[in-house]
């Protein structure tokens, strides 16, 4: 999975592209360090090109969410597809994030 991160309006937008399975999540943890460091701002995770997420990926999202809370920032999740939305609902994650 690829992540591209851009600064936008004082916050950050990350575009997630591909499958966030367990090995991808291990790599993504490194790629997301800039987001964790800037978790005091508004971080948007654009998931339009995200095809799949496993619990390892959810765990990354949760870690980012906790960091944002600790630092006073916020996480917005955008454009998740129906399958991923179902996974969010199954795990209660749908209510943990601002989903657009």
């Amino acid at each position, binding site marked *: 999975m690829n992540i591209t991160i851009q600064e936008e309006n004082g916050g950050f937008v990350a575009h997630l592209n591909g499958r966030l*399975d367990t*090995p991808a999540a*291990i790599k993504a943890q490194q790629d997301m360090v800039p987001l964790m460091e800037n978790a005091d701002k508004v971080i948007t995770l654009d998931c339009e090109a995200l095809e799949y997420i496993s*619990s390892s990926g959810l765990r990354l999202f*949760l870690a980012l969410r906790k960091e944002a809370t600790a630092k006073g920032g916020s996480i917005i999740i955008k454009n998740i597809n*129906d399958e991923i939305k*179902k996974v969010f609902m199954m*795990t*209660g994650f749908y209510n*943990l994030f601002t989903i657009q």
Partner: protein
Amino acid sequence: MQHHLTLPNDINTIPQLGTFVEGICEETGVSMENTMQLNLALEEAVVNVMSYAYPEGTTGYVDIDINTVDHRMCIIISDSGKPFDPTTKEEVDITLSAEQRPIGGLGIHLIRNIMDEVAYERKDNRNILTLKKYLPNSLK
């Protein structure tokens, strides 16, 4: 029809599960949504084995067998690692706030949500996890 895959306890082989499941689901006429969910349940179960069954630094294997009979898909994940029953893990409380949520525990929760039957047994020194899902709209 029987399908089999053996993977070593190396997380980097996980993407092979996707290809394996997708092939079987396409042949069986399973919907995209169910295909994705089966892939997810299988990944969660296999990652558990890779993470816990064998001592760190040793190579061990996980066997995956899938068959579909009468619109019922049966997935058996087995290994010869130490006794480990993933079904005894506590239920995750999905109503907790983000601050209260522990980072772990989601894997078995997803498996239980996705599959219709989840059963574990220890037999002949092997862990055997059997997952079943009813797929009424599949071709077989």
